[in-house]
Every structure is written in C-alpha cells, then in structure tokens.
C-alpha cells in the first residue's frame, strides 16, 4: 500500500532537476530539502522527546560559522565537514547539559537564552565572525571529484543527504531508542521507575537532533556561500519550529511538508503577494484551528473520515 507512493515520491525527487524548467526552481527545491533536514532534526526534540527548543538556529548557525571559518582558514572540504559537525555536537552537548536541567517552559527559556548567546557572539565578536557583514566563502566542495557548483548537482547532493537524514529518522523512530525517547515524553516518571536513564535518553536525543541541524547548517553555508547573524536569530529558531508544528510534530513527513510550505511561501509567494507575511500567518492560523495536530496528521484524518463516511454511508 505505502510502497507505491514512496517509490513515486522518490522518482519525482530524483528526477526533479531534469524536468523542472529553470534553475531557479531547482534552487528552491534544494532549499526545501536542507530546511527539511533542519526541521527533521528539530522534530526529534520537539516531536518525539516533547522538548520544545527555541535555540536550534544556534546549532544550525554554529555549523555554518564553523564551516565558514574552516574554509577561510584553508582546510579541505572533508576536514571542514568534520570540524563543522564536531563543533555542532560539542555545542549541542553543552546546550543539552544546561537546558535539560528543566523541561517544559524551563527548557524553552534556556534554549532561547542559549540561542541568543550564539547570536550575540555572531553579531558582536567581530574579529571572529565579521559581525553583521558575515562570512563569505568561495566555491562548493567536490565530493569524489564531482563539482557541486551547478544548481542541479547541488540539488542531487542535497537530496542524497536528505535521504540519509530521512532514513536515519525512520530507523530512529522504529528503534528501541526511539521508543524510549517517546516514553520519556509521555511518562518520564514511569520510564524512570522502569530503570531507564531518562536524562541520558534526552541527552542523546538532543545530540541526534543537533547533529542533523548541523548538517543542514553546513548545506545552508554551501548553498548560500555566505553566513551572517540573521541565520542564528531567534526568528530563525521559531521558523524551524513552525515548520515542524505546521507539518505535524512527531511524524516523519510533517517537518518536510512544513519546510516546503514555509520555503515556498517565503520565496515564491512573496513574488506575487506583497503582504506574504500576512498570508503565511493566516495559513498557520487556519492550520492551528482546523488541523491542530499539523497538516500531515490532519490530512490523514480527513482522508480516513472521507473514506469511512463514503464506504459507511
């Protein structure tokens, strides 16, 4: 049943640059993919672990900044990726140790503060980050000798990473670890009583989430070849959370749909509608009112209801 749409979706994604006319839309598709990776990363915490983070743009940005600094220092691209992801993981670990002292509102507030610290550093530590003039890099990496300079090849590279992210999420959700993460969300005290180390499970989920946020940040850097403090601003964290919530928390497809919605509204709709912010806001209100659990679960529920009422009626 579900194999066919999956295969179809894969074929559409894989061949997209071939039939999509104009590189502009291929670039938009690349953006959707790396923002989807980011949203998937945020979803691990916000969805499966029930820990709403408003500081993930900090992790996204750390990867982008670390990558940018490493490239300007003259390192090769494979080393750059290692440095960027290591920096993200270390930062994620520090974030986790501090933020996991609380849950619920406390967790949200600590992550906001941590994200703002990263923003402050990016904005004010000018000797390192070049302040709001940002860091510009030249060139994209050449994995296995393949140039990623063209929009098409960059799209395919992003797609490979995206599929890896999606696969890792699928494995994560089905794994005992994934189940225990959801357990700490629903019944932390019972999980504790059952002998699970709740704090450690949350900590590892935080690292997993941070890792994919960092990967997305690195792709962002290579895509834009530029990083500036706007990337780590609070609004960027909120936007990632909106992607997750509008698409559907704790689902695999939800963050992807949410990322597509936000990127398309921001880039495509803004060309036709001046008040696109307003439209985006209105769409979120509609989603919250009519599909409070997000677009994907909402649509599934709608389809089920339609089918049962058709068959039953």
């Amino acid at each position, binding site marked *: 049943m579900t194999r066919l749409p999956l295969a179809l979706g894969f074929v559409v994604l894989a061949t997209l640059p071939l039939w*999509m006319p104009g590189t502009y839309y291929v*670039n938009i598709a690349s953006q*959707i993919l790396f923002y989807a990776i980011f949203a998937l990363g945020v979803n691990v915490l916000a969805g499966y672990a029930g820990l709403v983070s408003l500081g993930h743009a900090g992790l996204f940005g750390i990867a982008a900044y670390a990558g940018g600094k490493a490239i300007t220092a003259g390192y090769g691209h494979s080393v750059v990726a290692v440095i960027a992801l290591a920096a993200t993981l270390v930062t994620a670990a520090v974030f986790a140790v501090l933020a996991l002292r609380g849950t619920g509102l406390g967790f949200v507030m600590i992550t906001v503060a941590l994200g703002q610290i990263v923003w402050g550093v990016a904005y004010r530590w000018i000797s390192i980050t070049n302040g709001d003039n940002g860091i510009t890099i030249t060139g994209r990496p050449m994995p296995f000798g393949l140039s990623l300079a063209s929009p098409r090849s960059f799209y395919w590279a992003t797609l490979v990473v995206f599929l890896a992210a999606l696969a890792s999420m699928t494995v994560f959700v089905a794994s005992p670890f994934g189940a225990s993460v959801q357990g700490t969300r629903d019944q932390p005290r019972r999980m504790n009583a059952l002998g699970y180390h709740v704090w450690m499970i949350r900590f590892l989920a935080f690292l997993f989430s941070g890792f994919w946020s960092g990967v997305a940040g690195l792709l962002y850097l290579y895509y834009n070849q530029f990083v*500036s403090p706007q990337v780590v601003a609070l609004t960027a964290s909120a936007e990632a959370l909106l992607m997750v919530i509008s698409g559907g928390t704790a689902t695999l497809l939800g963050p992807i749909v949410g990322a597509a*919605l936000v990127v398309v509204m*921001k880039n*495509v709709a803004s060309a036709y509608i*001046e008040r696109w912010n307003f439209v985006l806001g209105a769409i979120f209100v509609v989603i919250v009112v009519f599909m409070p659990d997000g677009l994907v679960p909402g649509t599934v529920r709608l389809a089920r209801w339609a089918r049962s009422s058709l068959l039953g009626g």
Partner: protein
Amino acid sequence: MALRLDRRGFLVGTAGTAVAASLPRMARAQGKPVKIGLLTVKTGPLASGGIQMEQGTIRFLKDRNYALAGRKVELLVGDTGGNPAGTKTKIQELVERDGVDMIFGPLAAFELLAITDYAAQAKMPILSLAAAEDMTQRKPNPYFVRASATSSQTMHPLADYAAKEMKLKRVITIADDFAFGHEQMAGFQRVFEDAGGRVVKKLWPPLVTPDYTPYIAQISGADAVVQGFAGSNPLKFMKQYQDQGIKLPVLGGSTAGDEALLKSYGDEAVGMISCSAYTGDLDTPSNKRLIDGMVKDYGNIPGLYSAGLYINGQVAEAALEKTGGKTDDREAFIRALRAVSLTDTPRGPFTFDRLGNVVGTFYVRRCERKGDKLVNTTIKAYPKVSQFWTYDEKWFLSQPVYSRDYPPLKS
C-alpha cells in the same frame, strides 16, 4: 505539496525558459524590453527605506515613459525581507527566471555582501546604494557601480567641516552598533583627528533599542556630538537628546539628516549639521522634477533612498545610450556604466572611479525651520569627493577597513 509546487513552477518556468531560449536569436535592441530587477525591502524594520527606493525607481521610469535609449523598460521588484538568504534567493529569481539585464539595490550592506560573489559569477551589473566600504575597496566586484556613497564618504567632508569651519576640538560619536555605523564613525575619526581634533568617546547603542538615555547620560566633556543613526533611529535619538537637556551641537551623517525624516522631526533637529550626497535644496532641473513628481505621486519630498534610485536610473540610461541600448555584451555594458559622467542629476555632477564608486559633490547642510516646515540649507559643498577623500589611494587601501575598533581611540 511538492507536486503542487512543481506544477506551478512548471507553468511559470516554461514561460521563463521560452523567453530565455529565444533571446540570442532575436534582435534584442528593438523588440525586447530592458529588464531592471529591483532588490528592495518591503517588509520588516528596513521597509521604509526600501519602499522609498521603489518610489524613486518608479518616479524615474515615469519621467522617461518607461523607455530608455529607445527600448521599453520592464521593472521587476523583489522583496528581500531584509535578510541575506532572502536576498540571495531573490537575485536568483530575477537573474535566472526573469532574465533581468541589471539589478538596482539592494538596500543593506549585509544583503549586498551576500550576493556579490553570485552577481560577479553571473556577470550581472549591480547599481546599489548599500554603503559597505570594501565593495569598492579591498574586495571589489567588477560588475558593481555605486552612485551614492560609501559609509565614510559623507563623513570625511563632515569631519573636515567640523574641524576647519566649526573649529571643534573634541567630539563624542554615537551610532548604531552595526557595520554602517562603525564605518561612518571611523571615517569621521580619521579625518577629524588628522585635522587636529580628538574623538574622545565612541558610543554604540544596539540597532534595536527602545531607550538611548543610558548612552546620552555618558555624553560630557566634548564640544559636539556626532550621530550616525540610520532608519528611524535618528528621530528617536534626537528626541531623547533634547529631552535630557543637552545643549551640545549635533552633527550627523547622510541618514541622520535625511530629507525623508524632516517631516517627522520637531524642533529638536533645528541646527543639526549633516552631510549627504543628496540635498533637497540643490537647484538642478532633474532635482526639481524629482521633488515635484514625488510630492505629486506620494505626497512626500524625496530623501536619500528615492533620490539614490532616481540617480541609478539616470546612470543606467546614460550607459544604455552609449551602448545603443544593448545589454547583451555585459563587459561593454559595465564599461559604459562606469564611464558615465553626468551633470544634471538630483545630486549634481559626478563620475566613477576605477573601482566603480562615485566621485561627486557632497553637501554640508544646516537644518532650519522655514514656516511650519524643516528644511536642510546647504552651507558648504565639497566638489569631486572620492571615497579616499584626500588620501593616497594606495595608502588608504593598505590600511585595514574602517571598523568598530579601527582607527583606535587615542588614550
């Protein structure tokens, strides 16, 4: 979701590629319109300047009946949202999908820095008024033309005026804590100190702050205050400055004394000395046309941003006339752009230097009350000011770029 985007993209995109594919075969000079892409900010905190940019562009095109050098002109506007990633996407849209011939804008330095490499790769001429120094200094882009000013280009003459005409000895500077503020104040400091003055303190309130009181409280022990705020911040600062009863004279940069702000200022701005590339009281036919047109269409007198884009239009027009309306040969077109020399513009006569930055007149003005209105009255004009002021270009470029800590304060 993905499918829906694809279908829409397919329709719009097909039209785009059809146009693009037919370009080389058709004689573009006659039938095809010149496409100008305007990158501006229409949403968010920078929107007021961005909307004025659009108004200035439209005003210019109306003056020319949407035709330049015998070709029709099509204007495509992209809202960058005032952030670098948005700017990158919008320029890709304008270049790759819409096939524009040149870009006007963007507004902010960080937007420009985010797209400069891409634009150079795409060989896309950019006519911007973003003031980032290094765009025409240490990291030049061969396809870039700036007819407005670098951040410090207005501050050099202002500092000269402060030291030599106003005989000021010690000043305190205060400006937004971002690159434009840093570069402005560093430029002021270098010229002012070389003329024998001293900058005794530099204050940097954050870009978004509700209250300048703690910063104003630190102002003492100087002859004057130099402010370099941008956007609507100059209004807020001057009001609070007056409320705290400080009587020291105020000097300001181009954004601080901008004509577009005058209707929002009260008496607190009277007496402020500012320096700008554009001044409303300049008596040229094109400035008169610009002011009349803006008042008629929008009910506002033009300021820096609308005049800046009007002037960009004139630069593009002059270059198109030289190439016979052709833009396909980008190298020839950018050469023509940089060779433009105009006299009747809203900012007076100007040319470009070898890096694509303007060499033109800068005006020191005093803000005065005339009837129920505030006006800027020009008190001194500095002709042929280059971005290097009177310094040797080689020496200037060998120094670090102006920043928050350079030149350092003398202790």
